């Protein structure tokens, strides 16, 4: 496989942003281009991730291309998914040998509308969506299953909430009123507007653009069925499979940036991947505190790369998820060494 590295990233998240999507992305895209000294004509491929459902408009990503500057014409693609999957498409493009540099970005701006409605419309259109369950209720179904089977405990959830910073301590957690039985507000995400931009480069170019490139040594994504009842709520087969294919466990992981917007998902995924439940190094910016549809996954990859640039870690894992009950999962292993 061709060696590809992340050489620059910029991000922004706020609970309620007044800027529109273009105004949000211009400074981020400009920053990564300035940091690497590349102008748009020197970037082989541009790929983005966003949600038309969130924007309430078909092909909404075309408008956001104004933030890139698509003249003279650029080679460009888009996924109606988290930017982590735009990064995957870009990685495949690198493997095809047709590019040496790429710009990947993604964004989501849920504040003007109702994100819960958007998430409901993405459920099975015949069997589930007409019942309008919200995302918290669906996470709660899995939480009760895991708690009653004693596969996780309330203590696990409280620990995770403290680690994520949604509460100060256990007392505060247990005092909270139930939001979506058995979940408390501290178990559920606060939604944020936000975006991420990053530059990727292939071996030979990456070393010129970055002092310590974060090399992608493994990347894979898998999906489970959308049929809730056909899934065993105790496990996440797609996450395990993606981790195996990405070689997550070939060596120690110094830092895991996992995209889990609920405490119950955090605990379950850590168990599934044999990651420590109370890690020494933990994300500075847990998605439970700021979850941005379409950007949180790519942001995890940016944070995992940053840890390598800053020499806080040498081998990191970034995870992205999408869909109800963590239906789709992507694993990306980054390393300071090319391996």
């Amino acid at each position: 496989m061709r060696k590809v590295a992340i050489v620059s990233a910029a991000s922004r998240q706020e609970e309620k942003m007044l800027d529109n999507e273009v105004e949000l992305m211009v400074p981020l895209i400009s920053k990564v281009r300035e940091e690497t000294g590349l102008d748009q004509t020197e970037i082989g491929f541009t790929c983005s991730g966003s949600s038309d459902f969130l924007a309430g408009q078909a092909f909404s990503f075309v408008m956001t291309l104004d933030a890139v500057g698509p003249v003279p014409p650029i080679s460009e693609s888009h996924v109606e998914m988290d930017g982590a999957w735009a990064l995957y498409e870009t990685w495949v493009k690198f493997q095809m040998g047709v590019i040496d540099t790429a710009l990947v970005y993604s964004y989501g701006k849920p504040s003007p509308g109702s994100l819960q409605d958007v998430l409901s419309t993405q459920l099975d259109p015949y069997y589930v969506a007409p019942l309008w369950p919200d995302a918290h209720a669906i996470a709660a179904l899995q939480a009760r299953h895991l708690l009653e089977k004693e596969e996780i405990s309330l203590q696990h959830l409280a620990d995770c909430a403290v680690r994520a910073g949604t509460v100060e301590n256990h007392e505060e957690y247990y005092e909270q009123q139930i939001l979506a039985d058995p979940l408390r507000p501290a178990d559920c995400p606060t939604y944020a507007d936000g975006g991420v931009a990053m530059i990727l480069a292939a071996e030979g170019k990456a070393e010129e653009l970055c002092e310590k490139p974060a090399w992608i040594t493994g990347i894979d994504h898998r999906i489970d069925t959308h049929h809730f009842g056909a899934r065993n709520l105790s496990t996440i087969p797609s996450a395990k499979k993606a981790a195996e294919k990405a070689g997550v466990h070939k060596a120690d992981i110094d830092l895991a940036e996992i995209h889990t917007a609920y405490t119950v998902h955090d605990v379950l995924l850590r168990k599934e991947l044999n990651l420590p439940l109370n890690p020494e190094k933990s994300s500075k910016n847990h998605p439970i505190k700021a979850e941005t549809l379409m950007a949180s996954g790519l942001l995890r990859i940016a944070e995992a790369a940053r840890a390598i640039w800053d020499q806080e870690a040498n081998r990191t894992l970034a995870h992205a998820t999408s869909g109800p009950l963590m239906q789709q999962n992507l694993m990306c292993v980054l390393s300071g060494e090319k391996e």
Partner: protein
Amino acid sequence: MNPEERLSAPIVLEYPFTRTTGPVIGAFMTGLREKIILGIKRDDGTVLVPPTEYDPVTSKALTEMVEVGQTGEVTTWTWVENPRDQSPWDSPHALAMILLDGSDTPFLHAVLVEEPDHMKTGMRVSIKWKKETEGHIQDIEGFVPEKENHA
């Protein structure tokens, strides 16, 4: 600028196409109209409810539809204290995964009880149909505790 002077137009998010539900989902929907629940047999003999045209795990095409029971067991649940505007239910209710007798996969629907204390994993519930059915998942008004429905 005075907010009332701002130029504005409504955005209506719509899906202006018609779809057919196909031989399997269509049969299930027709079943609902007739007040029966249909599942589909998988290669291993288990029954998938609600049915899909393919096996969600092996992707094999499935064709053999079978009727399942109208009573079953709650496998997990949550409580909805404040139903959303679009919700088919106006009052607080449970959302639950319900495993119908004769089926091997639970499916999502409401359990209509007054408070969460009346809910318990493993409880037996049965379908309460709407008076008028039209071939829609909302033909099921919800599930109620088994004894209550017989009363």
